[in-house]
């Protein structure tokens, strides 16, 4: 039975790396429902899974020029400030209503993404993107370099700030909001959005993971096989991603969005 942790984690790592999300959506339910692990240990293991997904894929994405390093650092400023702000707000806000509002928002985003068949790439840079050289190029499925520009930079920074607040208030990974903001507002190719989000989520999760680790909530008995499975899965995901058609990634992302919105609705009405 224990051996099952490895393939489940590998699947979470594979999906997480191609979608730019942590593996928490798979890891937490699997550990609590299949292995009857206490939720606190499961959450600690899921934080490790985010770090492992991010680290496992980061090397390949950097090498393949899918991660936009400049953009990742720029947007991370909004996320970490938002997360600190969200932490300070947490005791004053009833998160139940937020769960319902954002479940509906994610569901609406899933619908919008489902309707969007092709990449909507911007042909002009926002002045901030021009100043910080945020535009770049990425290899498409055929291995050809495709240039892209970066639009709506201030709006995306505000969305990242909001994503940081929400992840602190709702206890969810902010990867989903990051990918949505980069894909929808900044009009980046979905692969660049996923890879850049992948880079960012590991950085944000590492602080919390370290706190849980020192507190002793990261149990090696669970976290070690989870991390190992995730590393293997995310490495395979990062290798496969350049060859997967962008439309397929978008379709998988829509399914995950729908699942997360249902999970959030259930929490909101619980």
């Amino acid at each position, binding site marked *: 039975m224990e051996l099952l942790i490895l393939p489940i984690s590998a699947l979470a790592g594979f999906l997480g790396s191609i979608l730019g999300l942590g593996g928490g959506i798979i890891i937490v339910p699997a550990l609590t429902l299949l292995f009857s692990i*206490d939720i606190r240990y499961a959450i600690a293991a899921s934080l490790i899974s985010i770090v492992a997904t991010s680290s496992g894929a980061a090397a390949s994405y950097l090498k393949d020029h899918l991660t936009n*390093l400049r953009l990742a*650092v720029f947007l991370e400023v909004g996320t970490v400030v938002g*997360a600190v702000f969200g932490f300070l707000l947490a005791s004053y806000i009833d998160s139940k209503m937020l769960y319902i509002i954002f479940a509906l928002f994610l569901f609406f985003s899933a619908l919008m993404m489902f309707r969007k068949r092709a990449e909507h790439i911007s042909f002009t840079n926002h002045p901030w993107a021009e100043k910080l050289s945020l535009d770049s190029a990425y290899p498409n499925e055929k291995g050809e370099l495709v240039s892209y520009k970066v639009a709506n930079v201030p709006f995306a920074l505000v969305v990242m700030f909001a994503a*940081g607040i929400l992840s602190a208030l709702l206890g969810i990974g902010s990867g989903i909001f990051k990918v949505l903001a980069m894909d929808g507002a900044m009009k980046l190719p979905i692969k660049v959005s996923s890879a850049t989000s992948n880079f960012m989520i590991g950085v944000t999760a590492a602080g919390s993971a370290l*706190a849980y680790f020192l*507190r002793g909530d990261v149990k090696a008995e669970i976290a070690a096989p989870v991390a190992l499975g995730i590393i293997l899965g995310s490495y395979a995901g990062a290798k496969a991603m350049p060859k997967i058609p962008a439309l397929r990634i978008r379709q998988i992302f829509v399914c995950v969005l729908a699942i997360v919105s249902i999970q959030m609705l259930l929490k909101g009405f619980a």
Partner: protein
Amino acid sequence: MTGKIDLSKLELKISYLLRFGVLLSAIFLGVGCINLFTNVGALHALSEYRPQSLLETIEIAKAEGNYFHLASLFGLSLLVALPLVRVALTAYLFLRNREFVLMAMALFVSLVLCFSFFLGIEL
């Protein structure tokens, strides 16, 4: 133009360093997993929450001579350190490229992460 070429070379170096870190951590985690897969029912003990700090866990593993457990813990600590090293290297990369605004942003992110950790804020 020269700046961009330097950046991609440094990016490549960072990616190799990351790959080495992940591989090293995976080796230690793999060794640690032997303990789990040879010790059937090890997960049952985790169905109930029992607070135990990392230092206590290490002391117990040392006393029991459980080197597999110690290897897992080392692999996990290496893994957790990697993203923080990544941001620090990114700041260095921007410094080398004389992109001081982005370097300042990378340092700011590292500082907020450090402060949040010491203040007990979970991001």
